[in-house]
């Protein structure tokens, strides 16, 4: 059972890439879901908008699968909470 954060990330990715949510598992790679580089760019933007975070370029390059995206967002949210 995916946690809330994972569920939200999957929803954003499905909506942005116009793909059915059932085809995206918590451990799916972007390649397996059939996402290309244009999808990748738009997903980064959509995740930044959804969670109001800023994903640095070096981190962005490493996001290739759902777990990468989830952990990346989790880290950014934690860092922001720590600063507050």
């Amino acid at each position, binding site marked *: 059972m995916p946690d809330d954060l994972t569920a939200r990330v999957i929803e954003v990715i499905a909506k942005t890439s*116009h793909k059915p949510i059932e085809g995206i598992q918590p451990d799916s790679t972007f390649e397996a879901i059939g996402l290309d580089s*244009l999808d990748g760019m*738009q997903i980064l*933007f959509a995740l930044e*908008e959804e969670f109001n975070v800023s994903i640095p370029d070096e981190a962005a390059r490493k996001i290739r699968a759902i777990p990468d995206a989830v952990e990346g967002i989790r880290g950014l949210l934690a860092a922001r909470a720590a600063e507050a």
Partner: protein
Amino acid sequence: MRRRVAVTGLGVVSAIGSAIDTFTESVRCGRSGIAPLQLPVELDLRSRLGAQVAEFRWGTDRDGDVYDRFALMAGAAAEQAIEAAGGITADAAVVTGSCLGGNHFEDASFHQFYAERRSRFHPLTVPRIMENAPASLISMRWGLRGPAYTVSSACASSSHAIGQAYWLVRDGVAEAAVTGGSDATFSPGILKAWEAMRVVSPTGCRPFSADRDGMILGEGAAMLVLEPLDAARARGAAILGEIVGFGMSADASHITQPSGDGAARAMRAALADAGLGPSAIGYVNAHGTGTPANDGVECKAIQQVLGDRVPVSSTKALHGHTLGAAGAIEAVATLVAMRQGFLPATAGVTSVDPDCAGDIIIGEARRAQVECALSNSFAFGGLNAVLVLRRPE
């Protein structure tokens, strides 16, 4: 080497039809697409009329992410034209025209940035805005790898584009071409900018009319497939017309007011390029915007070059002034009319201004078999482009 250049495919997106047969019927019947504007935002505008394309939709969801409205319209028109031609060779050239580019996304992005203070831009903002998006879309969608670029010369953009594509095919640089133009004019910033020039009419578009008081904007796209006439015949393609000449000039005069001298020189250049004398021209599809500035000046220029007996009309009262798409949409209107044996009338005219001398066609479309016609586009900044079109044999 100079080859004759046939038109083997046509496509159009406009307020009066987004298929060639509906468009042709609208032109024949004089059915105007100018109507009260439907806008998603409240706007304070003096003129609330426009020729909008209702319920336009083309392409996939992904296309909608990458391309703005003007590029999707170009894609739709290109698809019609390429299907009509029965396909297109991979080394075809693509030459498109646009005045405004992706202004819907641009306007929305800048509003978010400046007014809503959202500093995160969509990653595809640049491809959405760039004027060349249609040329890229068409090239990618149909795998076209020949010369490909976009021309921007305000209201003459797609005339210049078609003229350039014609020369590429005529001179053997390309074996075929997809060419035309598109513009989606109805974004808030663009509407306000045009209103500020005081050339947009609050009442309607009445080219050559004594009571004309301005232009009405339109949106849309038109595309043509060009190939050498011999090759088209050899493969049994339907020949929809021919491009036989292209002429250009600059007024070197005023940034918005036309000079008749520039228009006359462009028409003469087009005739010279076609190797035709003035008497060969049976019809002029005028730039005819309906502004006090253009129409009288244009009529005088036509008279100087062609005499006062050549029939003249403007179809802008039907599809509006589509800016970067105007040259292409009007070339299509001229070609379909010639092929069907009629000359379009100028809609909306109450009485012809004495200042607009010549045989101005008003009322009903006129039945006539005309061999060759001119299509005029005279842009802001004095950039003039004239196409010479021929009916299929």
